[in-house]
């Protein structure tokens, strides 16, 4: 069967679509934006007009797991995700210099 495939970054998700993709309510995604786990281009716009890309889906899924598996609140999840991203950046830098 040939499936209709779309690269998420070419056709970003709406708030409702992102919420559905992570098995959450819309207001949970709004909270992710409030605690800056997700950053939207136009935060002043109503949430229905926000758009989300691959990196947002990845961070939302990771936040969902931290909340579910470790009972982390979203502020803690935001800190952990930022530290994880920093760790990966540092490791990539080491790898790029043959030190990984």
């Amino acid at each position: 069967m040939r499936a209709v495939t779309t690269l998420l970054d070419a056709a970003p998700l709406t708030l409702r679509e992102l919420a559905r993709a992570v098995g959450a309510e819309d207001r949970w995604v709004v909270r992710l934006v409030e605690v800056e786990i997700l950053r939207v281009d136009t935060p002043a716009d109503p949430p229905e007009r926000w758009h989300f890309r691959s990196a947002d889906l990845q961070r939302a899924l990771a936040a969902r797991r931290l909340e579910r598996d470790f009972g982390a609140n979203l502020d803690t999840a935001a800190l952990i995700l930022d530290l994880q991203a920093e760790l990966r950046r540092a490791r990539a830098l080491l790898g790029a210099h043959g030190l990984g």
Partner: protein
Amino acid sequence: MDFKDYYSALGVARDASDDDIRKAYRKLARKYHPDVSKEADADVKMREVNEARDVLSDKEKRAAYDQLADHVARGGSPDGGFRQPPPGWDDGYEFRRGPAQGPADHADFSEFFSSIFGNRGGTAQRGGDGAPYRERGEDHHAAIEISLEDALHGAERQLSLRAQEIDAQGRPRLVDRTLDVKIPAGVRPGQYIRLAGQGLPGHGGEPAGDLYLEVRIAPHPRYRIEGHDLTMTLPVTPTEAALGAQVTVPTPGGGHVDVTIPKGARNGMKLRLKERGLPGKTPGHLYLLLEIVLPPADSDAARAAYEQLAKAAPFNPREHLGA
């Protein structure tokens, strides 16, 4: 297929409380999390631990799993292997995923898990007021690993999935199906491809959910990938590094390009080939990490040349150490 002992995977007893399971999971997740673990098989262990937690932390799944474990213990197959659950093993249990349980991200779980829990969304239900139960199908997640060449040029790949369908009697059943997936050129690791309508089936005439495929790129012997950019180690001779040179370098797209090594180049110096990385609206760059490789002193002529160099260009690389 081996029967999986989820209790021993978490190191808990069969009568462990929810709190015991939560504590055991958190301890093991910290030990095997890929970002912090030094264990060689951390990824595999983490998947096992996740799978065990998924089952044992869900009352319905745990009860059904216990029933199945009892059945296998009583009359398991002679070779000790596990082929498939017996008919009716899950009678009375239903594995609907509530909104608080998070994404249906069982992509990395084992064949054993799929054979018993599949992608279940439960049997057909009716609303509390007697109206037909209607709900759009849940979105589902999986991962697809492609080669760097596929990411560069785009490709069409066939993906085998075990998915749920609703039969004529309204009961869910697992079917194997294959999907032709178009991989767009320039796709990067961590990006998602969305396959509309390929998630879990809807109920009461509502549409199916979508399938999200996370792109992973297999390690490449020559290039390291970071976002759009690629890095390649480029060996150069001491002469090329000291005096500068023009060298020919293969590019990820399959061609070659002439590169100028600047005079006095150092080991670890990075050269950037603009827009020679992954293609896209904003193409990535190709970075060349210079590695100075010494010619072997394996002949009289080579040894003489090294000795002559030492005399012609006296040099103490340990001067800054005071040695």
